[in-house]
């Protein structure tokens, strides 16, 4: 959280992990309203079933937004230079998500120093749902 730990960042360092969930239908409804993503497949089980799904499932962008907290709660939002993630598997209702980040590289750029962070979101039973990457300005 402090500038000192940012300056000392090195490959292999793990960032504080973040847990989110278990994901409830209520959280999916709130995320739909907060994000403006009103795709009913995430909040209406009848629509989910009509699409061949057994149940509603979480918005990928819900986990995406939680995963982005790993670099920003470590370094502060203003230091985040890029953030990306791939949606590897669906997040189901009742999943408990753990978001982790590991520094993979620290490099000089534009007269400053950036850290590259590899990110993952995994469920309580070990399924990886998102893999991502962040670049954070550390010095």
């Amino acid at each position: 959280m402090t500038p000192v730990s940012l300056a000392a960042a090195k490959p292999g360092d793990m960032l504080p992990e973040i847990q989110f969930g278990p994901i409830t239908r209520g959280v999916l409804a709130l995320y739909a309203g907060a994000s403006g993503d009103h795709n009913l497949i995430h909040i209406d089980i009848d629509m989910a079933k009509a699409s061949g799904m057994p149940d509603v499932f979480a918005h990928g962008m819900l986990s995406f937004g939680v995963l982005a907290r790993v670099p920003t709660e470590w370094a502060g939002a203003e230091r985040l230079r890029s953030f990306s993630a791939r949606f590897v598997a669906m997040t189901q209702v009742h999943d408990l998500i753990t978001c982790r980040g590991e520094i993979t590289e620290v490099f000089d750029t534009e007269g400053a120093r950036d850290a590259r962070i590899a990110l993952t979101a995994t469920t309580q039973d070990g399924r990886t749902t998102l893999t991502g990457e962040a670049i954070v300005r550390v010095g």
Partner: protein
Amino acid sequence: MPATEVPAHHAGTMSRAPTEGDEKVGETTSVVGPKGIFDRSTKGRVLEPITVQVERGRIQFFAQVLQLTDPIHFEVNAAREQGYPDLVAPPSFFTVLDQAANEARGRRGQPSAAALVNVDFRYLLHGDEAYEYLNPIFAGDEVTLTTSILDFYDKKGGAMEFVTLASELRHAERGVLVCATRNLLHRLP
């Protein structure tokens, strides 16, 4: 690697833009072949730029649902003490503005990118999303979103079809705030 990775050499090479003749073929035959839902004739289209407001309440609600804790997303005074003019948008707030732009388009009778490429939400999945942050987004900002339909491609022998969308979020004085790229896909029935 995840199935959603984009192999550049596949982009745009595994299918052609549909022509009027394709519809008939699709209806009259059940043999294996292109059965995509996306309207690939929209490749290269740039949607009309649309301006949306960044509202404090949206930042607070979005940050609350994601369980962000930094007061710069919730308390104007805390944000100002940190040197910001107003509440700071969370990292994934671009998606809120994108949806707001879609709603504004709908009110004007303009199609969203999803409507233009003919998204079928029953089969839609999100492949990936990438943001580059050039300047922060603050509550009170008026921002202009420009979205382009970059490309279409197939994977798994046509069982999945993808569209790549690119967007730029711009502020009149501070320039480009965020560049966003996303891949959406249909898990074809």
